[in-house]
Structures are given as structure tokens and as C-alpha cells.
């Protein structure tokens, strides 16, 4: 039987692991967002 702590911590550990393994697309997706939300007029895209 998992304890209350384990029930709470388990999913959080999963989330932490998910973020760790997806750090590359995570960082680059945020970078894409920041690059693409620069006013296109400045870059004349």
C-alpha cells in the first residue's frame, strides 16, 4: 500500500522526470516562441 506521501510525490517525480527527459524540445519550443513572437516587422519576415 503506497503511503500518502508516495501518492503525492509519485506523480511529481514523474513530472520532474518528464521535464528532464524533454528538456531539449522544452527549451527550444520556448526559444521558438520567443523568436517568433518578436515583432515580424522588425525582421521583415
Amino acid at each position: 500500500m503506497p503511503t500518502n506521501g508516495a501518492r503525492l510525490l509519485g506523480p511529481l517525480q514523474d513530472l520532474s522526470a518528464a521535464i528532464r527527459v524533454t528538456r531539449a524540445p522544452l527549451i527550444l519550443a520556448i526559444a521558438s516562441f520567443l523568436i517568433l513572437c518578436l515583432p515580424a516587422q522588425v525582421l521583415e519576415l
Partner: protein
Amino acid sequence: MLAFVTLAGLSLLIALLTRGLIRGNDDVHAAPAARTVPGLVIHALPSLLGALPPLGAALGLYWALQSTLTAPLSRAITIFEAVKSPTALADTLRTIDAIPDVAAKIKALFPDGWGPQDGKPDPETLAATGRIVLENVPATILQLPERTRALSLAIYVGTTLSFLLAVALLAFSARATTATSLDHAARSRVFHPAALFVFFAFFLGLTALFAAQSVTVGQAMRFDFTSIPRALGTLCLVNLCLAFLVFLCSMLTRASDRLRIPLISPLLAFALFASLLDWNDNHAVRLMESSAVDLAKRKIPGAREKLPPTAEDAFKAWFASRPADYKKKFVDKPYPIYLVAAQGGGMYAANLSGLFLARLYDRCPLMRHHVFAISGVSGGSVGAGFFAALLNEPPQTPLADTCNVYLPADGKPHSKGPLETRMEALLQTDFLAPVAASMLFPDLLQRFLPVPIPAFDRARAFEAGLETAWDAVISSKGNPLRQPFWQHWRPEGDSPMLLLNTTIVETGRQVAAAPVELKPFSQETTPDLQSLQTVLRLRPEIDVPLSTAMSLSARFPLVMPAGLVWSENRSFHLVDGGYYENSAVDSSLAMIAHLRDALCASSEGDCVGKSSTFPGDPAKMFRFKMFILTDYDPTPDYHSDPRKGGGGLNELMSPIRAMFNSRVARGELAVGRTMRGNDVKNAAGWVSLSHRIYNLPLGWQLSPQVQEVISAQVTADCHYDKDFLQFVNAFSAISWIDGGLEIIDAAKHNRQPRPYTATPLGRILATLKTSHCAVFQALGADKVWAP
């Protein structure tokens, strides 16, 4: 369209890779915990991340519209709507009349007395004012309200499409609560060795294609490699680069997690280390050698046979080659010598200088006997470089000694001449995509290689873009942009001498690529402008190509790299001329001062040539002046735009922002001094681009619509006789209309009317009139030509 497709591809790839990484990792158990909040986040993470790029694009497009529709532009649009036709003007006046106590309210808006002189102007003056507005504001500018509406619609469509793409991805994630085909694809295919191979082959293929731009620079090729990035477009290139980076980094982190060794951080550390030690500085400036035969032609006959010739010898030879009959007109009056100061500012500055000069020489070719040099910075240098090349283009059309810068009696502007038509086509070329392709692929790869590869240099891609624009519009045979820079100018030629300003990183000083020696080399720190070739101690047979000189002057931050040159075992880096002074006024003044020192008997007033300087020449008195091509707007309304303030990250960004803004302010100061200061006597006229009329974008690509708005502002046709007096008198009526519109606008937006020191409509009209009539006024004042 291609941009949108690649954006969708990038989005899906991010989602697919994220899902693949989650499913392929044993530490994450998303499915059992799907009912908890973290479980839901894990489940939605791929779609959330995939939705970020289209959301960014949607926001970017929306902000682009906001940054275009500035407060001054919105104000200008309101004004143009109110006066664009006699009916609109009559309606506006009726609305103003309906304001209670209108005379007192308008008067209160002009505390310094610049408002309407005698209360409401009489109907006759108001009618004349309406006519003056319609005559002096080109139709292109009066149509800005319609044009802006069309632009807004296009941007809203793009924003909506991007937003819908993001929503679709999120909706897909919400529906797919169990393992899907996407999961299957993510697990089985995304990291398959075949996918890996295809990705890397595609990346290396594109890198090679984009590097071919730099490899072929300086050569006429059957295939134009810059056409590939131009066909793809910059946004598509950005999306492709991001897709490759996402894939590569995901691969590396996956391998790193499995092998339990870091892979990305050592790579980044190596790139940093290689850059720190200058191992991979691949931005060496292209130099070329002239043959002995060509070099012999460079010598100025009768001068000191020195190479390069001195500026004063060059001036004397240039003046001596002007037709004797023409010079006889100036036996008893000063012969005006004009220098053109062409400011920086990417493609809008290139259009300002290029279109102004091309149109001027089309309509007033006798100006070639008076314009001795053009001093350019950044975009201004690009326009000036194309102009000089066009004037040297064989077979040269003989230019007449005529002038016609006056609006014809029928009120129809002159049709476009050959120079203007070709200049327009040259400047409609996309110069950004070749640089972006090189920067995002080969030049990015170069950061991780320890050996410099010149073919990966993005500045060369820019130069290739300039050269191939010429090939496409004019001809690829004998492309002058590929010739040594000094060849653009001959004393007996029609082309003015180019001074293309650049800044030396190591000394912070401005130097100009010039076909002459401006000052002999000196170890001492002097305030004089020196030529790039002198400072770098280049032998006379060594020079940069014209396209390289244009690019060296136009290396604005980040997009273009600093050019590397070795001189006497020491390296120098060259960046945009605008870092030092963006208006080119200071370098023009330095050239004037230098010529005056060398040629004139006294340092003040009109220049009386030293007795030995011009033997046998009918004209011996000169007047040196500048035409200033600028976007300087001295009125406070433009500067009070709240969107120009702040921006966050104060600790880090304030020093950078201050340096960046002060380089612009430094140029504005130089132009301001020619309007109200010590340098007034050196100014022949100003041709201004107004950000108040349209917020001009900074970049290396400009739409034909924006080019038309610029073109409408720099026209050389001038409407000047009795109408000019009416124009001055109309300012009282114009301030009445301006004041009334301000009160109406304030009521509409529930704010207090702002008191004015200058009226927006009056300011727009005055700027247009000054620009349109700059040449006409100068030629009249200097007694060169009158209609």
C-alpha cells in the same frame, strides 16, 4: 504559405519528439497517473510544447501590427481621412464648427502662439488649404488609411491561422486520452536510424546549398544560389533551422540520458572556447588585386602620379573634367559643390538614398557637375553603391546638361526615368533571406568547428545577394559590384565618389572606404576622417570589391558579423558605420573641411581657390554644401510615443540600450546642428523620411508598398511659385484643422486634448514640402538653375 507549412511542421515535430522522449523513458509513468494534475501535464506536454511556435507566431504578427500602427501613424491616418477629399474636408470643418466654444478651445492648444492667427479662418482660406493639402501630399500617402486597413486584415488572417494551429494541436491532445497512432509513431519512427539519416542529410544538403552562396560570391554563375533562400523566405528558414535544432538536441539529450554522459554542454563549451580563442572567426573581408594595366588607369594624369590619388588631386581632376562651357556660367559666382550625406537604417535608408539620387539624376542630370561625393552609412551606403554602379553601367546613356525638378504645369508628376526604374527593381530584392540562410545553417555550424571556413561567412552571402540582384535586374556581364571598389569613380565620369563609412572595433573610429587617400597615414590620433585603405595600409593594387565595401558599411548588430582584416600582423574588425555616427553628416563635413584646407585660400565663407590650384579655369570660387538624407524628426510628438520607453531587464539591457540609442541620437545631433547650429552654412537641403507618416521597418527586405510610401516622400518634383506663399499662409488654417481634430480625437478616446508646439498636419506638410523642394531651393539659392 511555405512559412505556415514549415511552422505547422515544426509544431508537429516538437510534439512528436516530446512524446517520443516521454514514452521512451522508463522513469516516466504518465499513463497510470493520468488522473492527477502532474499526470495531465505530462500527457499534454507534447501538445503544449508543440503549440508554442504557432502561438509565438500569432503574438509576433499581432505585435507587428501594433508596432506599425504607432500613435503618430494613427494620428496621421485620422488626419488623412479628414482631409483626403474636398467632401471629407467640408465634413471635418462642419464637425469642428459644431464643437462648443471651439475658438477658445483651439487657442488653448497653442500656448506658444503658433496656432490660428485670427480665430477661425475664412471659408476662402479653408478651401485653399484643402487644395494645398491635396496638391502637396502624394496620393500614395493620402491612401494610407486604405492601405493600413488592408495590411491589418492580412495580419489578422495570419494571426488567426497561427492561433488555430495551436488550438488544433491542444484539442488533439485533450481528445487522445489513450495511446494513439502518434504515440506509436513517436516510439517507433522518430528516433529510427533512417529518420536520423534523412534529417542529417537534409541539414547537410541545405548547409551546402546555402554555403554555395558564399563560395560563388564574386563570380558570375549560371545558377543563382541566392534564389533558393529567397524562394523559401526568411520565416521558413527560421522554422527549418528550429526544426533541425529541436531534432538534433532531442537526439543528443536522449543519447546523453542513455549513456549517462553529458553531450550538449561540452559542445557548447567547445563553441565558446573556439570563439574565445578566435579559432573560428570566418568573417575575413574579401580583398582583390587589380592588374597592372588597370592600375595604370587609376593614375590621375598630370597629378602627382600617386596611388591612391589624394582627395585634393582627385577633386582638381574632377573639376577640370567638367565642361568648360558649363563652368563659364560660374565666372562671377561660386561654383556649388555638393556632397550627399546618406544616413543608415537598413532597406528604408537604402531606398531613401537610392531612389532620391536616381530620380535626381533622371530629372536633373546637370547635378553630376555639382555632386562630388556621397558619404553613406549602412543602408545609405547600399543605395549609394547601387547608384554609382548604375551610372557606370555600360553602355552609358549620355546625360544631358539639363534640369527639371519642377512639377509640370498640368500638375502631373514626371514619369519615372531609367535610373529610378532600375533602382526600384534593385531595391525590391530580398537581401535578408540569403543572410538568414547562411546565418542559420553554415555560419551556425561554423561556431562548432575549430577551423575558419570562409564559405560559411554570412557577410559573403549578403554580398552575393547584392551581386545577384544586379545580375537579375541589369546584367551579369561586367557586374560593377564585383569590380575593385576604386573603379566606381573616375575624374571624368558621371558617378560621384563614394565614401562608405565603417567603424573599426579596436579603435572605435570611423573610417571610409574611399577611392582616394583622405589623409596620409599617421600614427597620431587625429580628428580627420581617414580612408579604410590608408588605415589598413593596403597596397594600391589591393582593394575590396564594391559589394564588400557596401557590406562593410552595413554590418548592423547580430544579423551581420564584424569583418576581419589583417594589417601588419594585427587584426582589425570592421562593423557598421552607424556605430560611430549614423547620419553620415560628420564624415561629409570632414571631407568638406579637408578639401577646403587643401584648396581654399581662406577657411571661412565661399572658397576662393588658391592661385596655383586651378590655373586657366574660368570658375575659381567654390561653395561646398551637403544634401542631407535623413529620417530625423525634431518634434516632440514622435518621441513621446509611449511604446518607445522601458522594456525591462534594466541591469543587463540598459547599457546596451543606451549605446544603441546613443548611436542614433549622435546622428540626430549632427543633423540637428545643420538645421539650427554651426553647420547651417554647410547645408544645401534636407530630404526627410517621416516615421510619423509611416513607421518604417528596419531590415534587409522591404515590401513594394513601403517602397512606394518612401518614394512618395523623396520625390524631386516641386510645386513652388505663388502656391508657396499660399502654403505658408495656410498654416494658420492648418493649425485650426489640427486643433479641431485633436479635440475630436480626445473626446473620442476620453482624454484631455494635448497642447501642441507643432501641428501634426502642418509638420507632415512642411516635411514633404521641404523634401520635395530641397533640390529646387538649393539650385535656386546657388544660382545653378531656375525654371
